[in-house]
């Protein structure tokens, strides 16, 4: 039996929500993403419409240099300090509800929706889930993404 690593203080962070972030989609940013990912479809290389996963660069956190850790990572302020820190493979679930075009303003909100522990043969693992909802200016859901991360 592994011990219970998750304190009430950590579990109380479930439900915590980030400040909404509003960003504009540009043709240039779509083109850069399409080129960098090796995309071969002309509509994306032209920036006429955004390819799947374009929301990943659009909403990547921008922090100042002194707020990056020595290995170059920005600290996710949505998360509590966990007793395990080594990140293992994670999973992603994305629903695509509406297409994204240059000129669109999109707003993302991230919510820490779950934290739980599982005890494997090699010891305890902590799982957490973050849901990001992306809406347009009419309030319509455009993308819903759930990230699951595992710490050991």
């Amino acid at each position: 039996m592994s011990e219970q690593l998750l304190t009430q203080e950590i579990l109380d962070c479930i439900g915590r929500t980030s400040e909404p972030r509003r960003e504009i989609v540009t043709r240039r940013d779509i083109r850069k993403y399409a080129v960098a990912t090796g995309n071969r479809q002309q509509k994306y290389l032209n920036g006429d419409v955004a390819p799947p996963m374009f929301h990943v660069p659009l909403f990547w956190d921008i922090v100042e240099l002194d707020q990056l850790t020595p290995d170059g990572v920005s600290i996710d302020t949505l998360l509590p300090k966990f007793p395990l820190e080594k990140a293992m493979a994670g999973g992603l679930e994305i629903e695509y509800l509406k297409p994204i075009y240059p000129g669109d303003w999109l707003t993302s909100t991230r919510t820490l929706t779950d934290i739980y522990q599982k005890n494997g043969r090699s010891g305890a693992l902590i799982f957490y889930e973050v849901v990001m909802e992306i809406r347009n200016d009419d309030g319509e859901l455009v993308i819903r993404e759930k990230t699951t991360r595992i710490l050991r």
Partner: protein
Amino acid sequence: MSLHAEVGTKLPERIFKPDNVQSMLYNAVLWNGHRIHFDEPYARDVEGYPGLVVPGPLLGDWLHQVVEEWLDDQGRICGIEYSNRVASFVGETLTAGGEVTAVTDSGRLTISVYVKNENGDVITPGVITAELNH
């Protein structure tokens, strides 16, 4: 030409050879400063990796690309679930592909997708749902 999609239909595989330039551009587009993706001495000596780590979401992007290239604008991706199971490194040759595992009467497809490394290990398994145009 109309798309042929039935259970067992295999999607054309696509080979990816991520190099330093692509890795740099991808991380720049994301604004990702994680050293394991561009600082080779750090990746090797501090983190103990054999080389520069290919970013997980880039592998996820490739799963979408093999499906969209096969769909050829005759359908659209509705959703994906995937996980990054095994690390891969700049310089490796990776193969992405997929297979249709379910088709509904209304034209909704379930496609099992993967990225494999040179050993044939599935490093990024996933499932994509798509719908064909009516």
